[in-house]
């Protein structure tokens, strides 16, 4: 959280993350060049650049798309999630190099505008299998550009959460377009079963991970809750650690119940910044602190401490003996609710 926007909120972990990414990119490109020139010395520099950056971008996109579901399946993958934004922007830059060089190599030699040439050199739009693959790649690149261009916190704050999220979920469409771009393009010529197998394996892993993680969450959503007069039983007080939370599900939404200073308060689990799980964070200086980027909320009213304006929904709690119950009806974001004393 800050009082102004920064280019990048650098910290030690981000610098390390970016250094590893940068080294990975350099090693990959050099390795690709060495293998290419060893196996086919006649390869032109333009072809090498197009293939090296294209394959690197696809590899990076696969890794990026695995991060989300992996963190849901095992928390040890969390460090990969914190700086996924940088990973995404770098991946777009690699894809952009591939795209620009491809456009120059294949579409700038005639007297037709290069962008027009991408869309009109093959007009077989009615065919499913003969669909112009260049168009698929171009559209995927546009989506990735939109995402990279709006990845800064300014856009999160000013595009509205719904719009920003919808835009960034377009990565799934971009991924589908990229896979088809490969199979209708490069594979028409490079029919090596190894390459086919690798991309197929990558796609299978990603789809399987997402579906597995998704249905794991369904189990949590559908967990049986014992109810009494409209109140849902959560746990006993001793089950909640000091300055930490116990998570439960109310009407499909995850709620975090925090224990702090001899009191209990309940807030919606999703951080307003980038959707981090507040319930996995802790109380620091009297504030619920999101484990992803440090955004804070006062437990008594779900509001960020002034001058910040983020708010999350709050919930009523009651204590019967040492049993904690929650009213599943959420209050509007930022509504004060008296914490219950233990």
């Amino acid at each position, binding site marked *: 959280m800050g009082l102004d926007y*920064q280019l990048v909120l650098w910290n030690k972990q981000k610098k390390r993350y970016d250094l590893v990414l940068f080294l990975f990119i350099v090693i990959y490109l050099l390795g690709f060049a060495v293998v290419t020139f060893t196996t086919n010395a006649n390869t032109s520099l333009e072809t090498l650049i197009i293939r090296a950056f294209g394959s690197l971008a696809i590899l990076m996109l696969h890794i990026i798309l695995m991060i989300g579901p992996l963190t849901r399946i095992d928390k040890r993958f969390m460090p990969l999630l914190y700086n996924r934004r940088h990973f995404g922007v770098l991946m777009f830059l690699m894809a952009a190099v591939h795209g620009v060089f491809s456009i120059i190599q294949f579409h700038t030699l005639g007297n037709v505008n290069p962008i*027009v040439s991408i869309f009109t050199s093959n007009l077989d739009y009615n065919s499913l299998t003969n669909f112009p693959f260049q168009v698929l790649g171009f559209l995927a690149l546009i989506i990735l550009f939109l995402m990279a261009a709006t990845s800064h916190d*300014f856009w999160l704050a000013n595009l509205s959460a719904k719009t920003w999220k919808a835009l960034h979920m377009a990565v799934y469409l971009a991924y589908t377009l990229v896979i088809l771009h490969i199979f209708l393009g490069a594979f028409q010529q490079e029919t090596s079963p190894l390459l086919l197998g690798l991309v197929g394996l990558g796609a299978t892993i990603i789809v399987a991970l997402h579906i597995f993680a998704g249905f794991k969450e369904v189990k949590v959503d559908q967990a049986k809750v014992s109810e009494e007069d409209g109140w849902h039983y959560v746990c006993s007080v001793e089950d909640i650690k000091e300055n930490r939370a116990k998570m439960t599900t109310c009407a499909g939404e995850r709620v975090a119940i925090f224990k702090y200073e001899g009191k209990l308060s309940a807030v919606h689990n999703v951080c307003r910044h980038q959707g981090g799980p507040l319930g996995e964070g802790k109380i620091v200086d009297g504030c619920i602190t999101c484990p992803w980027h440090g955004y804070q909320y006062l437990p008594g009213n779900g509001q960020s401490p002034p001058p910040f304006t983020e708010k999350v929904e709050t919930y009523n709690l009651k204590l019967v003996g040492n049993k904690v119950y929650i009213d599943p009806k959420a209050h509007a974001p930022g509504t004060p609710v008296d914490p219950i004393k233990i």
Partner: protein
Amino acid sequence: MLKSTLIILIVIFGVYVLIGFLFGLYFIFKGAKQIDPLIAESKFSVRLLLFPGTIATWPFLITKIFKK
């Protein structure tokens, strides 16, 4: 027919980008402050970083500026 339609769509896309570029120049110098006061406290390099996104999302931003 298909070719002409595609060319028209590409021209519309080009016009969109051009308007975005021109609006972006206004936005980074003046417009950004109107919709987000935090930008006024931020370095100019941050606004430059926002330039590509401005080209892409100028209709949203113009609507926001008019609403303010």
